[in-house]
């Protein structure tokens, strides 16, 4: 096995997902299959290959330090389930 039930539960927890016992079994099996498949790459000899930092060979995409207009507050808040006086309103954090 490439991944344990515990690891799946931990990752689900980090992603704030609530999984049933059945789902944990199901995802453990699926993730194991995916990881085993990816593992095939390890069969390649990459001793002479430079590590890749990014899939495209471009560096330094940079902009100047210039301020542009932000978007209207109405748009900023338009997807929020709840707002209050310009703030996003969320369940109490502490």
């Amino acid at each position, binding site marked *: 096995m490439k991944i344990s039930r515990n690891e799946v539960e931990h990752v689900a927890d980090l992603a704030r997902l609530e999984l049933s016992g059945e789902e944990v079994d199901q995802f453990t099996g699926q993730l194991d299959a995916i990881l085993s498949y990816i593992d095939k790459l390890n069969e390649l000899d990459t001793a002479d290959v430079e590590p890749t930092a990014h899939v495209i060979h471009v560096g330094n995409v940079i902009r100047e330090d210039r301020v542009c207009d932000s*978007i209207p507050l109405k748009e900023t808040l338009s997807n929020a389930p709840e707002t209050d006086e310009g703030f996003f309103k969320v369940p109490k954090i502490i």
Partner: protein
Amino acid sequence: MEYEAVIGLEVHAQLKTKSKIFCNCSTAFGAEPNHHTCPVCLGMPGVLPVLNREVVNYTIRTGLALNCTINSFSRFARKNYFYPDLPKGYQISQYELPLCEHGYLMIDVDGRERRIGVTRIHMEEDAGKNIHGEKGDSSSYVDLNRTGVPLMEIVSEPDIRTPEEAAAYMRKLRSIVRYLDVCDGNMEEGSLRCDANISLRPVGATELGVKAELKNMNSFKNVQKALEYEVKRQTRLLEEGGSVIQETRLWDADRGVTLSMRGKEEAHDYRYFPDPDLVPLQVDDAWIEEVKKTLPELPDAKMERFMAEYDLPRYDAEVLTASRELAVYFEACNKEARSPKVVSNWIMGDLLRECKGDDQEILHCPVRPEMLAEMIRMIGKGTISGKIAKTVFAEMMKSGKSPEIIVKEKNLVQITDEGEIVKIVEEVIAANPAQVEQFRSGKEKVLGFFVGQVMKASRGKANPTVVNKLLKERL
């Protein structure tokens, strides 16, 4: 058993750029909630962050000032965690391959120099701000104006051994980022923030103990106090045979204790990975040279120069160069007054007291350097006495008027004319026969009494040298 503390600091410095790190929203402080936001900093799907050149420049500038290697190749990573002030669910930061590494900073505690290693300096984006409702309100309120404001995280080696050294390191760092003009250094407002890792180990041991991470220390004094508390707490734990657990603790400045955040925090598992939205950053020598040209004279170099060029004691040079504003003030004033030690005394005494040591107050102080210089020249020429100058200084502070005008308006010109002073001296001698008798019978100390009386009668304006001379002649 004797323990020693091992302390490392992580400092976040907000960079003074005009726009955010990955979008063109303004970084200006104090805007209405959520007015400085756009799809990029709101973390909308499908947007593309683009790096702000000035963020790189400021970070390189700091790296050079802290003796770091500037990496020619660096990249951004995603740090994944959930919190309402982080709309994307990850913070763009640097992990492997930060921009600057392997630097150091010299600090001075009680005349002992110490070299504190700087592990790395990396660039990242700030999170938003949460405001928590009053009691009974079951909501929190999120303002994302600060989301995406550029930060530099400066991580020290665990080279710090005492809380005093930690405070000295913070002071030095603040002074440097302010000299570099990359961060305003305001700890109370959060533009300079400090977290500390601290563990204890028996003196002489090389292995590290279990550390606690301290947060929420928003002044130099609080950094020192929180660490002092933590040294005591951990020492007590170890002496009682217990052990320190690795955890995050919050400093409560009101109660003067650190409190565990246990329960709130699960083990850190940030799952860093390279951010595919941002291409790697390549910094060549030409770019570094370009930034090097913008480096100002730094506090240590300036202090050495003040000692050599102006022949000032080390203490004076250190105080005067601790802030750039003060150093500029000194040099502007001395350029006119040409009397470094006198200028230094006035700045370290009256000016710093009036401005409460605050850089902004110095910058906007009604007593401009030229005015102080003019006043010092008036003392030198004998137009006013040093004592009267105190009054003139206070008046300049109040009204912002030039010393010449103040002296004229208040009629404070020193009387050096012997004829005028003789009259007062004779009056005073005539009015105090008993003291005259004492003086003549050998009690020379009474002379001080006469000087005082004459000065009082002249309302402080008589030239003390002349007064002394005349009194000795007449008595």
